[in-house]
């Protein structure tokens, strides 16, 4: 059923089994999993079905450093379907190594493995409407010394809001509330669970949703903000007794700093990259062993080689003579060696060229964080202050990844690589618009905000869906993994709610 919160009575109280806050990729995936399972669900969306300036303005805040202006409102959309209303649809699971504790990457390691998520990735593929057959990572060539691995991304820019609006509105057990802006989580006095969520419609109207369980699915930054602004029972915010909420914020910095050129069509780069399509794109990364040897982060190198028109060879042909070369050849002959350069007739082989990006893993860093600003929005909620920090390992990893690619391209004859000289990597990246880590998953509440099931430590009926639960960022775009985690959270909550019933 569809309800416009603007039509509700002021002070209304809604009662449900589950209340999902936010109808983006995570919230919609979770709601879909609950449909038809006998639970009553409220799906609260702050915006409407279309973009509007008033709702979007609630996403404003302060971002340091001012990477792109304005990062906070530009990297998120605040209406039904959320940021998938303009995402690019690149989907790929995280790699095994992304979940592992890497001794050279401080704060790495998840409490779950890639294998834990495997069945949920298959279900996420159905939600994201991509083929479930994600090819694994394989060496670029079968040669032990090769250090470059290759893998594909599926590309399916599904607009979750449009694709699932009908299903959700028609579901008898789900009520979709539009213009329902969650303001605050109200904890029970002992602080061990959420009693209700306070919600504002577009005007002054306020109402409450009470539920047995709540899930924050407000996006990677707003999930942390909602915990921090809900500070009346626990003054430091919900789930923040160890000052972990908002820390470890990560995005995928993109470094458009390199170029690659191949001299023939048969090289593996050219072969693979010219086969890219609208729904499928191949990328490259360093082998696990090389990441460990070089003590660097994961990261993905993507390029699309295209033929170049190269005129220098014409110049070479029209040049009148190569006296020094002729002289050398003649000297060789005089020394009794045969010189018969039989020229090949026909076309010069094409050069293929591409600029390329490194989309880097961003190292987890407790000082890279979401906090609250002193400015408030029109509902009186403190705005976000985002302090996105990078460290030496972030830049060194990019430099080294390009270097290894360049070395192997040379050793195996695949082509040549250029890293712009004198590049200041610290000033040469742009954000990937992927908001990860600010409510990270850790078994120990001293080091994270949610447990392995994505439930907030110390608050027994509150879960979090979204990339804010990621412990590390890998290179893969986050949505496919956050949908898999949301599906997994749905299973967990259904068991718990079933038990409660």
């Amino acid at each position, binding site marked *: 059923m569809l309800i416009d919160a603007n039509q509700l009575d002021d002070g209304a109280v809604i009662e449900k089994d589950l209340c999902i806050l936010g109808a983006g990729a995570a919230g919609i995936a979770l709601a879909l999993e609950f449909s038809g399972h006998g639970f009553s669900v409220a799906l609260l969306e702050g915006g409407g079905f279309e973009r509007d300036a008033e709702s979007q303005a609630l996403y404003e805040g302060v971002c340091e450093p001012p990477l792109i202006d304005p990062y906070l409102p530009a990297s998120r959309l605040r209406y039904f379907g959320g940021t998938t209303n303009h995402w690019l649809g690149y989907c790929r699971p995280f790699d095994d190594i992304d979940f592992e504790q890497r001794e050279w990457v401080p704060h790495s390691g998840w409490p779950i493995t890639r294998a834990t998520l495997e069945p949920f990735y298959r279900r996420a593929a159905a939600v994201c409407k991509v083929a479930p057959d994600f090819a694994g990572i394989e060496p670029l060539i079968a040669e032990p010394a090769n250090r470059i691995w290759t893998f594909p991304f599926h590309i399916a820019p599904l607009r979750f809001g449009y694709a699932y609006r009908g299903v959700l509105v028609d579901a008898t057990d789900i009520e979709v509330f539009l213009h329902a802006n969650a303001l605050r989580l109200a904890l029970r006095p002992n602080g061990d669970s959420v009693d209700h969520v306070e919600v504002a419609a577009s005007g002054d109207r306020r109402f409450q949703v009470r539920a047995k369980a709540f899930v924050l699915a407000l996006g990677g930054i707003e999930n942390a903000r909602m915990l921090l602004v809900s500070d009346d029972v626990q003054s430091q915010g919900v789930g923040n007794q160890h000052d972990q909420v908002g820390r470890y914020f990560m995005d995928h910095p993109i470094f458009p700093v390199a*170029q690659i*050129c*191949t*001299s023939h069509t048969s090289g593996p780069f050219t072969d693979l990259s010219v086969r890219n399509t609208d729904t499928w794109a191949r990328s490259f990364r360093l082998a696990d062993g090389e990441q460990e040897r070089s003590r660097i982060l994961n990261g993905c190198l993507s390029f699309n080689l295209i033929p*170049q028109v*190269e005129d*220098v*060879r014409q*110049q*070479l*042909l029209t*040049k*009148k*003579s*190569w*006296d*020094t*070369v*002729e*002289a*050398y*050849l*003649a*000297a*060789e002959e*005089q020394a009794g*060696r*045969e*010189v*018969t*350069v*039989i*020229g*090949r007739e026909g076309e*010069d*082989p094409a*050069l293929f*060229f591409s600029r390329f990006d490194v989309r880097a893993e961003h190292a987890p860093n407790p000082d890279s964080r979401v906090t609250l600003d002193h400015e408030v929005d029109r509902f009186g909620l403190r705005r976000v202050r985002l302090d996105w920090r990078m460290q030496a390992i972030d830049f060194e990893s990019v430099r080294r990844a390009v*270097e290894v690619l*360049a*070395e192997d*391209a*040379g*050793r*195996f*004859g695949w*082509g*040549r*690589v*250029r*890293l*712009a*000289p004198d*590049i200041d990597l610290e000033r040469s990246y742009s954000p990937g618009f992927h908001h990860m880590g600010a409510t990270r998953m850790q078994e120990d509440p001293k080091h994270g905000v949610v447990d392995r099931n994505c439930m907030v430590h110390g608050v027994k009926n509150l879960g979090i869906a979204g990339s804010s639960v990621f412990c590390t960022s890998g290179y893969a775009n986050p949505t496919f993994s956050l949908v898999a985690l949301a599906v997994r959270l749905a299973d967990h909550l259904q068991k718990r709610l079933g038990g409660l019933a």
Partner: protein
Amino acid sequence: MTAQLSRRALASGALGLVGLATAVRHLPSLLTGPSRAQRLIRELVNLVAVTEPIAVGRFYFAAQPGVKATDLVPQVLAELPLGGPVEGIRQAFRQKLVDDFEAGRTIRLDGWYLSETEAQLCALVALEVGGLGG
């Protein structure tokens, strides 16, 4: 990662005089089509995967000022089977580039990670075609 210009023997002493004689000897082929030197250089440049060899060659000169064509030619052509079919020359040149990378004989020019040999070829092209005073 610096070019070791003295790495290969600079068998260049006699080249100046021989060059004059050669130019006269090959005059007819200049009228009929590309000379063997032109064909050879074209084959080799085709194997160098940089978009602007002349520009790259200029960076070589910035790093190694004073290098002459007579220094570069023997280094580029050394060990190539010039008496065999052109495919053999190509293959040997490719291998020379791979060997450079394997042995760490690499050089960074304008950001490109290059084998020394191909950097020297680019330098030769810059000198002869790019108007670097050659």
